[in-house]
């Protein structure tokens, strides 16, 4: 059946048919294959990329590689100073940032408010940070949209997430609380527990991470004085590892040291919000669905191309059979042609994806509400898709050739239907 001789003749015929085919026809088929490849890789790549962008944002801007947080039934991480010392002593740790976190209320426009008006209040979370440490881990300074970043000595100054401000809230809903007429330099009232202070807005944070855009940030020493905590216990510790270090390994090291008795230890993957995990699952399913449809479309495209090609050449197929060329050799020649089209299409597609589209999406991400969408095309997966495409193409190229080849030889030669 698929003997060496049949393969040799099939290859001989395929090479000559491709070499001497019309340039336009060949270009058109290859163009269709490129589009099919892009459909396979790019559509699902963008879907995954939207989530990947969001995961990256959570990872780099909020949780870093490992996040240690307060247990649900505790007010803070007990024994924080010892824990921080332990973490800092580990060789794979590059930098840490300790955070304080408390519920807070912000009020704006209290000086101009009339007695009959409702106060302009917003409930939020206030995060106390060491500005230098935080920036070293999460590059928070780079997220400042307006105004400037905090300095260690800043007194009664805060950074506001942009969605605390009415002008940035994307929905016009009176039930969605936001501060009116507030911008950089505006004085607002900050209440934490029973302590109220008047603070100045120093900067506004822009991000796709909710925990940045809906929270308030101030210097840790200021917040400590408001909440009256002087024991060094913090609410969160985020850890940035040296390049190549494994967050899971660090988590396991900390768990072995009994850290979990006083705190919750999570890698950035563990700490992803549930909605992201749900979207990942949904998008993965959608991506698989789109890829499957893309593969079916590719197979049908190749089937039609090869069928038309073989049907219009049925006289020559009849002649080949007439002079003693086996049907298998003829079928193999069409399989080789299909493989050629799939490989050339995939190669051009690969070049487009890795030399143009991936860098393009990295430079200009898709502005999605919860992420900066990029194109995710892991090499392993892409190569797998190339193989999948070639495999589907082989089947789709073989079937129509087989259908035409099995026709009566004389009917083919004489052009009888």
């Amino acid at each position, binding site marked *: 059946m698929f003997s060496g001789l049949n393969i040799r003749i099939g290859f*001989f015929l395929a090479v000559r*048919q491709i070499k*001497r085919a019309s340039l336009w026809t060949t270009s058109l088929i290859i163009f269709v294959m490129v589009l099919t490849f892009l459909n396979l890789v790019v559509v699902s790549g963008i879907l995954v990329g939207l989530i990947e962008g969001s995961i990256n944002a959570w990872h780099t801007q909020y949780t870093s590689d490992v996040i240690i947080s307060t247990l649900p039934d505790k007010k803070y991480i007990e024994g924080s100073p010892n824990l921080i010392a332990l973490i800092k002593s580990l060789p794979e740790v590059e930098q840490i940032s300790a955070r304080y976190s408390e519920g807070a209320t912000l009020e704006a426009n209290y000086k101009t408010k009339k007695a009959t008006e409702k106060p302009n209040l917003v409930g939020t979370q206030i995060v106390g940070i060491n500005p230098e440490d935080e920036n070293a881990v999460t590059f928070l300074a780079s997220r400042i949209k307006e105004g400037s970043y905090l300095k260690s000595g800043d007194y009664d100054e805060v950074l506001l997430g942009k969605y605390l401000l009415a002008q940035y809230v994307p929905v016009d809903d009176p039930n969605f609380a936001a501060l009116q007429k507030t911008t950089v330099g505006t004085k607002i009232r900050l209440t934490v527990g029973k302590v109220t202070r008047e603070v100045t807005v120093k900067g506004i944070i822009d991000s796709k991470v909710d925990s940045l855009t809906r929270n308030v940030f101030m210097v840790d020493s200021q917040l400590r004085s408001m909440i009256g905590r002087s024991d060094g216990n913090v609410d969160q510790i985020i850890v940035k590892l040296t390049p190549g270090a494994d967050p899971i390994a660090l988590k396991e090291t900390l768990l072995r040291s009994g850290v979990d008795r006083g705190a919750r230890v999570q890698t950035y993957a563990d700490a992803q919000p549930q909605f992201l995990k749900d979207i990942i699952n949904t998008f993965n399913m959608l991506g698989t669905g789109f890829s499957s449809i893309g593969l079916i479309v590719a197979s049908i495209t190749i089937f039609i191309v090869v069928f038309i090609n073989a049907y219009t050449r049925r006289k*020559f197929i009849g002649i080949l*059979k*007439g002079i003693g*060329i*086996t*049907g298998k050799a003829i079928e193999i020649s069409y399989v080789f042609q299909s493989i050629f089209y799939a490989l050339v299409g995939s190669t051009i597609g690969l070049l487009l994806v890795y030399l143009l589209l991936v860098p393009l999406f990295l430079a200009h991400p898709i502005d999605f509400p919860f992420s900066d969408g990029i194109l995710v095309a892991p090499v392993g997966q892409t190569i797998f898709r190339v193989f999948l495409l070639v495999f589907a193409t082989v089947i789709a190229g073989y079937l129509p050739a087989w259908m035409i080849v099995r026709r009566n030889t004389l009917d083919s030669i004489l052009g009888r239907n």
Partner: protein
Amino acid sequence: MIKTKNLIKTFQTGGIETKVLRGIDFEAKSGEFIAIMGRSGAGKSTFLYQMSLLDEPTEGDIMIDGKDSAAMTAEEKTGFRLEKFGYVFQDYALLPELTALENVLLPLLMQGRSRQSASELAATALASVGLGDHLHQLPGELSGGEQQRVAIARAVAHSPRILFADEPTANLDRQASARIMEIFTDLHRKGQTIIMITHEDEYAKFAERVIQIDEGRIVSVQLNQ
């Protein structure tokens, strides 16, 4: 060498049965040059297709070198056509994307010959029909007569037992036709068995035996000197 017995071929078209061959008994001996003549629709091409294993008869036997074609599988028939037969069709039947050399080379490669040996054999066959200078031209770049000579080279390059030719001069001018008949005569002189269909008395005269077919039957056999 080749023998048919009570060969019948019937076609069904829209429920109507048409008997094209009505029981032909025929025998060709090795080295013979036979011309088959008859008016259009007489059944001569159908007869050639049955003999040359391009089609299957409805009834009757075809024996080739003592082997019954009815007992052959499709693959065996393909192998038989490759090894033992050569074909020259009215419309040349060359593969347009293959050069003259490649057209002749292809069946030789299919026979399992090496590329070099097949190329040498194909080039010799083309030279023998006067196309030694046209090896690398595509069929579309050759005249009708030249294309038919490529087809003859392809048909005889592997030294087949029988050369079947279906009106090989039908699409050619007088000069080209004469050249084709010259080649056939030369092949016959070298011992090639040829069974040729023709309309032209002028070309039938080159054959040793002329068989007239009418309404699916052999109606006369004439021996030429």
